[in-house]
């Protein structure tokens, strides 16, 4: 088979369905990555228009352009859209589009999950967009502090759009984080050890783990606030034992890591492009990886610096101030590693390099003002003023948008296969750079002069008129520059001016594909021996296309790829992906019905939607696996590896493990909230604490023992070749006992609306019950699969996932009961 025939054959196997209808059933990362990016840039435009409306309002004193009510929606939605509907999805899109190519593989770990994540983002974003169009958008600031967002002061639906829409969109972030983690760890080209990974993969790995541990506190906070608004469970109402500060802790536990979740992928773009622009390798690869990890860990220790003015005890302030200033050290390591890289090589002033220089100037200023606001006394003055608005735009526009534009111009040829014809990028850069600094440098000053954030107008006597006008003019110049970027991208897609392969003479694998990148990425999966495989062997693209490496024979007509060992990159498992399907979009739509039923307070519909999601999820898992033993699969070059149906740790196990990391963080945040209310909230202790019940505890212990023993027995008897049915039934009985125990616990708990204590116990118990349902569904599913003949002593992967979830259920139930009974035992 020659290269062209192989290309045609692989394209037929991997392509999405033709025409626009193909978008709804595609599961290919090439399509979905671009769909994420295009949608994210659409929201960038909307958020940009809102920014222009804000600047128009503030351009003159006593402006009557927008009243305070409308203005509240403008600044809230500007923040919400830029953070949740632009920045995070743009990162997901970039990573999903690029990583399989950089890692030398054919797709992400879970192609259908990529699609499900995209459609959750699409529908969730659409909800927020609708609220904006109808003038009922969230209007209490992007960080939504209660009690202002409680139902007394925000009785309208505006706040619910935020809580429900954003939680819906977060599903896509969690999905993307799980599969990015598993993809980077396990789906790479043979021979690509951890130390040979492109630096961008390291950054995204760290970011994905941060999303898994950073987003759950926000999801929990949103659930609690919505429970308070919809059902009167008083988590944040001080009169009933709640505390509004709990929201601030949960929000910033997410909110500060979020800044680094946005910055680090952009730093990954710089670390990838800058060495290529300087014709050299990155200085201090290992140092940069270490700095990234350090930054990720530190970023979880400084959320309180957003709360310096809330009356935190003095020692706490000193600790968080120290952590907040020291986080600048790993950032400095990266900045100087980049400048050192330029000194090591010969930097060329190509267009992406211009945007990188724009990044340096802007981001360094943002970092320096960041250190300033980390110093507590200074923060007391500038907190909630325009100074902080200016600082955060220097960090986010400088640290994210400039690198993203560098990346756009750098990777555009890969996506379109065209090179730029009109030289608009340089003009755009000049307008963006000048416009940005005019807008935001001025805002530092007006903030020091006392202009607060979020005011809709000011008087001429305040003395801010000239600065605000200058700032607004700068803003419009900036917007004009961004429009030119958009125009150039559109022209690039329209004008057929073919680019050479690997136009920047880069060393990483994404440039080894044909251009534009084909649906299957690589005709054969290359053997990698260094960090820059294309520099080792300039002939590599041809050899890949000729099928000289792994999985070069598309004879069986399946979407195949390899799983490798985490550390060494040795091929270990053979993967067959599912084909195009509308299952993800259907499941996202039914998930959307669930969220809509809560939003519109049609609560009877919610259980039906949940049953719908569960049914589709079972259907989803049902299509995997095999009814007959497959044996070891030949993957080319004389290597045999088992199929993922016949291993102990299939992809589903890895995905579950990382999903449980996120889940455990959510649970941990709930326990944190409980401890916070118990110790800090003014309205404690409640009228009474529940006392431990022997019935609840004994049933729980019997349930746990039966569940663990049952699933263990099922796994071991299946391995021996016996039927696992008895073990599965014992486990199911154990799960049922756990359910009874938790239900009995809830009947003895105080009312969820009378005090935050009762409300917390109800959330804890319900959390346990949800997991009881999940575990029970898994066991029923396994019984059905066993009946249908999907299990054998060889095909043991079917039984890999349930033990994880059952173990998790047992540990959390034990913790729930212990923590629930603890105050009663102490008192």
């Amino acid at each position, binding site marked *: 088979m020659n290269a062209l025939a192989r290309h045609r054959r692989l394209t037929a196997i991997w392509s999405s369905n033709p025409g626009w209808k193909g978008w709804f059933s595609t599961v290919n990362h090439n399509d979905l990555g671009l769909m994420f990016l295009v949608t994210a840039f659409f929201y960038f435009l909307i958020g940009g228009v809102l920014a222009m409306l804000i600047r128009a309002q503030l351009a003159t004193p006593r402006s009557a352009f927008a*009243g*305070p*009510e409308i203005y509240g929606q403008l600044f809230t939605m500007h923040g919400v859209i830029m953070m949740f509907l632009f920045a995070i999805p743009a990162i997901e899109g970039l990573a999903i589009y690029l990583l399989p190519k950089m890692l030398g593989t054919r797709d992400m770990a879970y192609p259908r999950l990529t699609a499900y994540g995209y459609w959750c983002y699409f529908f969730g974003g659409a909800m927020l967009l609708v609220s904006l169009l109808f003038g009922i958008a969230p209007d209490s*600031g992007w960080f939504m*502090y209660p*009690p*202002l967002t409680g139902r007394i*002061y925000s009785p309208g639906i505006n706040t619910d759009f935020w809580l429900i829409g954003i939680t819906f969109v977060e599903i896509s972030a969690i999905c993307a984080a799980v599969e990015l983690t598993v993809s980077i760890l396990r789906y790479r080209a043979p021979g690509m050890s951890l130390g040979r990974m492109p630096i961008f993969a390291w950054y995204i790995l760290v970011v994905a783990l941060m999303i898994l541990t950073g987003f759950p506190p926000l999801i929990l906070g949103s659930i609690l606030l919505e429970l308070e608004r919809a059902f009167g469970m008083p988590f944040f109402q*001080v*009169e009933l034992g709640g505390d*509004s500060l709990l929201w601030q802790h949960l929000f910033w536990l997410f909110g500060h890591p979020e800044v680094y979740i946005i910055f680090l992928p952009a730093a990954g773009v710089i670390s990838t492009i800058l060495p290529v622009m300087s014709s050299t390798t990155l*200085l*201090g690869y290992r*140092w940069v990886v270490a*700095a990234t990890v350090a930054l990720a860990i530190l970023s979880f220790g400084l959320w309180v610096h957003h709360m310096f*003015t*809330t*009356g935190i005890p003095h020692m706490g302030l000193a600790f968080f*101030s*120290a952590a907040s*200033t*020291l986080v600048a*050290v790993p950032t*400095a390591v990266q*900045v*100087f*590693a980049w*400048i*050192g890289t*330029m*000194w090591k090589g010969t930097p060329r002033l190509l267009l992406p390099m211009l945007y990188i*220089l724009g990044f*340096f100037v802007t981001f*360094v*200023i943002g970092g*320096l*003002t960041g250190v*300033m606001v980390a*110093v*507590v*006394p*200074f*923060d*007391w*003055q500038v*907190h*909630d*003023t325009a100074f902080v608005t200016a600082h955060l735009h220097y960090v986010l526009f400088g640290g994210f948008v400039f690198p993203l534009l560098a990346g756009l111009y750098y990777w555009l040829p890969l996506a379109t296969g065209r090179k730029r014809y009109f030289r608009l990028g340089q003009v755009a850069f000049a307008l963006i750079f000048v416009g940005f600094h005019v807008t935001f440098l001025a805002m530092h000053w007006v903030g*020091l*002069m*006392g*202009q607060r954030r*979020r*005011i*809709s*107008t*000011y008087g001429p*006597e*305040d003395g801010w008129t000239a600065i605000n006008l200058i700032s607004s003019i700068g803003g419009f110049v900036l917007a004009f520059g961004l429009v030119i970027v958009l125009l150039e991208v559109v022209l690039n897609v329209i004008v057929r001016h073919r680019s050479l392969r690997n136009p920047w003479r880069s060393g990483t694998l994404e440039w080894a594909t044909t251009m534009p990148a084909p649906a299957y990425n690589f005709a054969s999966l290359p053997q990698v021996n260094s960090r820059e495989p294309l520099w080792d062997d300039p002939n590599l693209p041809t050899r890949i296309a000729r099928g000289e490496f792994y999985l070069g024979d598309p004879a069986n007509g399946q979407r195949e790829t390899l799983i490798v060992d985490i550390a060494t990159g040795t091929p270990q498992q053979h993967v067959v992906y599912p084909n195009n399907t509308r299952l993800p979009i259907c499941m996202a739509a039914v998930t959307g019905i669930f969220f809509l039923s809560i939003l519109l307070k049609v609560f009877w519909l919610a259980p039906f939607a949940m049953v719908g999601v569960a049914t589709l999820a079972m259907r989803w898992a049902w299509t995997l696996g095999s009814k007959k033993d497959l044996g070891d699969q030949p993957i080319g070059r004389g290597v045999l590896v088992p199929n993922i149906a016949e291993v102990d740790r299939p992809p589903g196990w890895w995905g579950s493990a990382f999903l449980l990391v996120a889940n455990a963080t959510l649970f941990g945040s709930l326990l944190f909230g409980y401890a916070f209310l118990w110790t800090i909230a*003014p309205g404690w202790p409640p009228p009474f604490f529940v006392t431990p019940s022997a019935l609840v505890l004994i049933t729980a212990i019997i349930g746990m023992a039966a569940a663990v023993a049952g699933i263990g027995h099922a796994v071991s008897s299946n391995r021996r070749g016996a039927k696992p049915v008895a073990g599965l039934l014992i486990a199911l009985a154990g799960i049922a006992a756990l359910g009874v125990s938790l239900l009995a616990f809830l009947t003895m708990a105080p009312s969820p609306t009378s005090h935050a204590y009762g409300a917390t116990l109800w959330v804890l118990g319900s959390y346990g019950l949800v997991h009881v349902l999940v575990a029970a569904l898994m066991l029923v599913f396994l019984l059905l699969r066993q009946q249908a003949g999907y299990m054998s002593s060889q095909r043991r992967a079917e039984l890999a996932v349930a033990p994880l979830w059952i173990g998790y259920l047992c540990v959390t139930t034990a913790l729930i009961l212990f923590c629930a009974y603890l105050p009663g035992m102490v008192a």
Partner: protein
Amino acid sequence: MAAVVSGCAGPLSTLDPGGPATRTIANLWWVMLLGAMAIFALVVALLALAFRSGRAPRTQVASERVWIVGLGLAFPAAVLLSLLAYGLWAGERLLPREAADVARVHAQAERWSWTFSYDDAPGRTTTDILHIPASRPVDVAITTTDVIHSFWVPRLAGKLDAIPGHVNVLRLEADVAGTYAGLSAEYSGPGYDRHSFTVIAHTPDSWRAFLEVDE
């Protein structure tokens, strides 16, 4: 310098300090601004120098030592630790410590007004005007009856939040008698723009007169 400082004047300017607390913070700002400008100039110079041609090639190990260990780790660690020490020292001076001549007042926020009461004049309340003695430390006990607000008199002290169920104490002091503008600095809904108040700092005589007025 005089021109710069006069450009900083204004009823709400943090750089036109009217008391010891804001003077400490304004000095902190000027020191940090100068330091930041020096560091920024260094970074831009290093970037510009990267484009000059004919540099002597360095070994990888030597480069890592200079760029990463020297400039990336040691340099920011030294700068940040000294700044942190300065910041902590400045913060200590702002604390509401026990002292003999401290006047105590209470500030209670609601949408969109402030009610002030006075330990030295029990039962006396004022709305949107806070009276304090000048040249004496004043502790303001801040709370709210509805949503979160923030008490801020930019020329006299940093801001501190008013949080339901909590009372936060802020120390402020005015050097001279006079009128100072105050703001609520946490978004509280549509009336936020005009949620402001005035602080009147009295001379000892007029303070005594204020306390003795019988309403």
